[in-house]
């Protein structure tokens, strides 16, 4: 069935008006909206600059990790053109790997990266090779449902093995940093820094290594890439593996912060999708910056709508972007 279209079917961008380059306009609009949101939040908190600063700091720190997850998602989309609905489940997997190693063997949670990342790479290779590659040519609807199924399978396997009881991972005493008056726990700071380092590493890999170039070639032009001898199936495998390894690494790094349950990754799923649309499907830099924006949206949404879940702010941003600029803030035109 020819259900869904390939995602970049955005409406035609407005003709550039008043001489402002099209690329700059959405960014200026975003800044303007952000300024309005700041102002409203300021009023909401009764003029407390401290709460605002706290929101800023917490939002940015969280946003860095969201960005790493989104990076994996956007990479997978850019190359394989599939929407990985299992992203959150892979984040959860990373958390559980860390949990098992840390609670059974006493490992330092951050050390478990050397296990969680490779094991997720291997898992990704297996999944892409044996499952997804079979369905690669098919309609987007099918691959969407396939990754949905994979995500459900992972989540419920975890549920079956570990039950739904929340688990936690301990680190040594969590130092508290003071950033412009706002409070940031050490684990959040480490998660942010770790996410940024991994994102940078991925970016360098894409730009500087031959594998990275091959990946970018397949993203830009799969047929052309095949013609110059690149094994696209192999690149799909590698890219998918990298994408979910990002998710798993993010899971490991936030494990000291969150309560670990089989559905703990779901919030990362949602935010990843919002970020990827915000930043532009397939745009690596957009994913990182989009991550920061969404992290802030979550916090400021919490200030503006105090009785609702934090995610409401995220969804409002999502809806706005879907309707006003579905190609993302960093795409030029449509």
């Amino acid at each position: 069935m020819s259900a869904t279209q390939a995602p970049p079917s955005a409406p035609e961008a407005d003709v550039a008006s008043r001489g402002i380059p099209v690329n700059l306009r959405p960014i200026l609009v975003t800044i303007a909206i952000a300024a309005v949101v700041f102002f409203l939040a300021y009023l909401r908190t009764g003029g407390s600059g401290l709460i605002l600063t706290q929101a800023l700091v917490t939002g940015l720190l969280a946003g860095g990790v969201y960005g790493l997850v989104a990076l994996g998602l956007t990479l997978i989309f850019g190359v394989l053109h599939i929407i990985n609905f299992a992203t959150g489940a892979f984040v959860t997997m990373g958390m559980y790997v860390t949990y098992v190693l840390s609670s059974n063997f006493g490992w330092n949670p951050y050390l478990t990266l050397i296990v969680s990342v490779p094991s997720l790479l291997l898992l990704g290779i297996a999944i892409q090779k044996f499952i997804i590659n079979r369905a690669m040519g098919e309609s987007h609807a099918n691959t969407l449902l396939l990754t949905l199924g994979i995500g459900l399978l992972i989540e419920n396997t975890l549920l079956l093995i570990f039950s739904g009881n929340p688990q936690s991972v301990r680190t040594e005493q969590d130092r508290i940093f003071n950033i412009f008056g706002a409070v940031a726990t050490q684990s959040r700071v480490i998660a942010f820094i770790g996410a940024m380092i991994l994102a940078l590493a991925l970016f360098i890999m894409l730009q500087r290594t031959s594998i990275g170039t091959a990946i970018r070639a397949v993203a830009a032009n799969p047929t052309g890439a095949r013609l110059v001898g690149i094994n696209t199936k192999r690149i799909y495998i590698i890219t998918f593996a990298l994408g979910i390894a990002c998710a798993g690494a993010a899971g490991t790094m936030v494990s000291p912060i969150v309560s670990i349950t089989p559905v703990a990754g779901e919030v990362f799923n949602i935010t990843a999708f919002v970020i990827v649309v915000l930043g532009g499907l397939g745009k690596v830099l957009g994913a990182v910056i989009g991550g920061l924006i969404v992290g802030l949206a979550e916090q400021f949404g919490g200030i503006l709508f105090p009785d609702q879940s934090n995610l409401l702010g995220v969804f409002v941003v999502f809806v706005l972007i879907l309707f006003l600029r579905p190609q993302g803030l960093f795409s030029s035109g449509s």
Partner: protein
Amino acid sequence: MSPIVTVEHIGKSFKGLRALHDVSFTVEPGEVLGIIGPNGAGKTTLFNCMAGMFPPTTGTVHYEGQDVTGWSDARLARAGLVRTFQLMRPFGSMTVLENVAVAAAARGESEKEAEEEGWEILQRVGLAQYATRTSKDLPTAGLKRLELARALALHPRVLMLDEVLAGLVPTERQPVIDLLLSIRDEGATLLFVEHVMAAVMALSDRVLVLNQGETLAFGKPEEVVANPAVIEAYLGDEVTDADAH
């Protein structure tokens, strides 16, 4: 007799790219108007503006005396101004008969009438034996006829054909041309964009030549073909039909 279609000063720009500029012409009822021009001349854009896919940036289109500028393609089709597409677009999972019946139903006929009319049309265009076949299984020539059949179901008074002969081998072309002429004989007006020069010359009462979005020539086929500007425009762009005879 007043023209059935009047196009006045049509212009169309996409994000600063000018696809059409100040194109004006009329179409007499019952005539066959050929539209030619090198690739990128704006022929399909002109069709799209006239048939309601998108409105022109400037200018107007009148159909049967009414200003139809900005009407949607669906509304125009129901009013008898129908266009076919260059790329075949069947409703793949539906049968050939169902494809035609959809168009007849859109005109307002009941399901029963639409099916009956569809069957008559299929017989007329020579697709009768494929009536219950899934349309995506049709060969190219069949799909072309299906496009025509669907258009016929709308009882078009003006039929706009976008490269209806493209993709057909020469032996497949004559039956389609005969069919088009029979449609004309029933009183329809035909506009067709075409690269098959032989067909354009043989069929058209008049020819409109576009180049780079502007009118280059408009008149009888013999006049247009002898026009030095037209010849020059084509020298820079191969005429795609090598076996013009």
